[in-house]
């Protein structure tokens, strides 16, 4: 949560939400249309960043799961380690590969979008762009 929050927050800060919302409503758009057509599309980069972080964290999560006695993949690997080292190593590598694949996909997707729209790259932390204008 905090990681996702940080990333989305940075994305929101980079937008001049007030002006964009007002511009949109002066053109006849209601609140929900504004959110859907203006705000969310401009947050894709930030949202993807949040996804990258969350996916990376969740796939590696062991501590909480094992304390909770929940059987997640990492927990399963550790348990199986005591039975068969071979299965455990194989599944570890598999997990590594899957994680890498997912992150790669998200990053590729995000960067392509961002390049088109001039946003930043999808990284672990999206930096807020400096405000172009004061009041």
């Amino acid at each position, binding site marked *: 949560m905090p990681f996702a929050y940080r990333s989305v927050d940075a994305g929101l800060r980079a937008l*001049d939400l007030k002006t*964009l919302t007002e511009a949109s409503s*002066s*053109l006849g758009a209601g609140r929900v249309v504004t959110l*859907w057509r203006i705000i969310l599309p401009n947050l894709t980069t930030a949202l993807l960043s949040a996804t990258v972080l969350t996916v990376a964290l969740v796939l590696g999560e062991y501590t909480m799961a094992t304390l909770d006695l929940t059987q997640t993949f990492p927990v399963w690997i550790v348990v199986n380690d005591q039975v068969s080292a071979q299965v455990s190593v194989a599944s570890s590598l598999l997990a590594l590969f899957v994680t890498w694949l997912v992150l790669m996909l998200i990053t590729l997707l995000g960067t392509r979008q961002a390049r088109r729209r001039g946003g930043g790259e999808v990284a672990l932390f999206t930096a807020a762009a400096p405000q172009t204008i004061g*009041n």
Partner: protein
Amino acid sequence: MAANEIAGKETAPAVTGASETAATAVIGVAGAGPADARGGTSVSLRGLTRVFGQARALDQMSLEIAAGELVALLGPSGCGKTTALRIVAGFEYADAGEVLIDGKDISGVPAAKRDMGMVFQSYSLFPNMNALDNVAFGLRMRKVGGSARRKRAGELLEMVGLSAQAGQYPHQLSGGQQQRVALARALAIEPRVLLLDEPLSALDAKVRQQLREQIRSLQQRLGTTTLFVTHDQEEALSMSDRVGVMRAGRLEQVAEPARLYARPATAFVAEFVGTMNRLPAELGGGGTAVTALGVTVPVQEGGPSSGPVDALVRPENLTVAAAEGGNGIVSGRAFLGAVTRVAVLLSGDTEVSVDVPSPAAPAMSPGTAVQVGLPGTPVLVAPRKA
């Protein structure tokens, strides 16, 4: 797929909104009579008051804007001009007073249904859309079909001279180009009123100059009633049919630019618009005549009729000539092109600026003794500053 579904549902309320405004627009035109059939809309602000905590941003402000007119609100920052504009746009509400569009009170109408095009001070283009889609956004909200929408948006981009940039995203456009797209976007919905909130203040001088002319000529061609807020007097004076000078939430004077400059109603207007000299003066004749620089001239209405006063005189309305033992000494000069502004230190430590034709300026080198004179035209007086 879910995305499209939600978007589809969401645009439904906007449809009813658009048809409602269309209906009111028809009523408005019908009410205005055949003379305004071209679509000109009149705006009137009546007794607008807005209080933020202790501060009165607007204090009983009233203004009438005729159909097709461009009125500028000019004033120092914090004078309430932007608040007035935002109330008209519907982004802000008035504590008292009303806004009438074609004689109809719109106070209860949300911004989205007011049919007003607005250009903002900060860059307000939607970053996720290219220039063409930005311009087409308002038409899309009004359910104009895809091809008609693109055609109209293309026409508007052509009108602001940016056809070639139609496919570019805001971050690929310069500041001036962005504001021109924003202008096209505001005009695309054929707004009843165009609202400009310091649209040029973020641009550099040269672009500002060009865009100023472009906005004015477009506005005149389309006959769109326009309210323009600025703190730049040059901008206000050069673009508007009338200028309203604001101070502390009130309109000090509303007049044509030339009149505002030549016959300011109050000392504040006089000193805010253009350069003004203050000359220590003596009132006489029961407040109808004033003596300054040893010359007695009639007093223009608008100032106090007794007490210590200063006479307010424009640099071009003073005369100066080199004279041994004159009443002043030249302390500096600035070449402004056709005229040169000469600073003269008068006895009594008053410094005044006098405009002289540049060919006559070489005689006025700093240190020269000069005689500053006051022609007999009426002058405005103001209470002397402590």
